[in-house]
């Protein structure tokens, strides 16, 4: 299992989701990814993307105007 981090600060919808999607495609089931965003829309979009694609959102938090997501890749990421 690996842990990766993705900086999506300053990116606006849907770029953070695209970056997450592309990053997850390169990870293996069980790998974890932390994503840092500044677009408040990601609070809706990244959890929705995880639900649609069957990945596990371990937690999400807001810290100093940043939206931080921690997710675990599930099943076939492709």
């Amino acid at each position, binding site marked *: 299992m690996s842990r990766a981090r993705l900086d999506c600060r300053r990116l*606006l*919808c849907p770029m953070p989701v695209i970056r997450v999607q592309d990053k997850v495609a390169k990870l293996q089931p069980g790998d974890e990814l932390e994503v840092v965003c500044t677009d408040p829309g990601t609070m*809706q979009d990244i959890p929705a993307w995880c639900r649609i694609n069957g990945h596990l959102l371990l937690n999400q938090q807001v810290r100093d105007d940043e939206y931080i997501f921690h997710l675990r890749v599930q099943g076939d990421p492709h």
Partner: protein
Amino acid sequence: MQRKAVALISGGLDSLLAVRVMQDQGVYVEGINFFTGFCVEGHTHAIRKKDQKKLKRNNALWCAEQLGIKLHIIDIVEEYKDIVFNPKYGYGANLNPCLDCKIFMVKKAREWMESHDFDFIITGEVVGQRPKSQRKDTLPVVQKDSGIDDRLLRPLCAKNLPETLPEREGWVSREKLYDFSGRSRKPQMALAKQFGFEDYAQPAGGCCFLTDAQYSVKLQDLWKARGDKQYEMDDIMLLKVGRHIRPVPEYKLIISREEGEGKFLQGYRKQYPSLKTTSHPGPLCLIDGDFAEEQIEQAARIVARYSQGKNDPEVELEFRRTDGETRSIKVQPLPPHELKKEWVV
């Protein structure tokens, strides 16, 4: 054998319904949503502080979740430039290359379909709904120029169109497809009600900044100033933010209108020289283009005009170069009558 279709998902009602109609016929569907850089959704809301509390969501993702399908969001910003620069079929409203755009997206979806072993493409198009890309005479152009031919099914208006391969092969029943036409949204709304969909997006005039008159003027101004039709992702983002003032052809000022925009523009201070009022609360301004040293004062006077010191005899600003070097400038704010109308883009 369950057939597989890939659907173009815009996030609007029509594509939502088209997928649902296919699912009712037992077709397995996955969605594709293309990001051109010009999508309206949420960008201004995400930037402006006053809009921070508005609900922001990506409608394509929302649709996919309602439908229980996978959605692939594909970045086509670079490839899409050719479509914006030279649309074979010209522009529709403002700078919207609508027919070329549709052809391009269907072509990209066809490539995806072929590489992922799917059987056909579906769209939410309705004949007669859009003045250029969804006319009875232009719908076949999309099929021909994209290379998809009769593997493109439009479930909401299929009964008004020639039979497609999925219908001929019995993968779907033509009888259970629809015959919607024209600009009325009533049939779609009735079908949405029947399926139990509420809270769907209803974008006015599509979901593309290129359909927006003011945005198109700003983009044309950018092209004119640079002497060619080029843009980068940062350019098209910045066209959505602030007031744009071009006092001379060589440079323009991008001046924040409120706190959220100021914060957003701050992120560009390593790419663009900037001005910020220091003696009074006021905007942040990026300077885009080439300017001479003596033109900085004029720029500063314009920026000061939008600060809380606009009626004071003097306002102090910080001029910052992209390498971080700063210096202070004191200027008299430009009086309103000296700000020429033609400067405002």
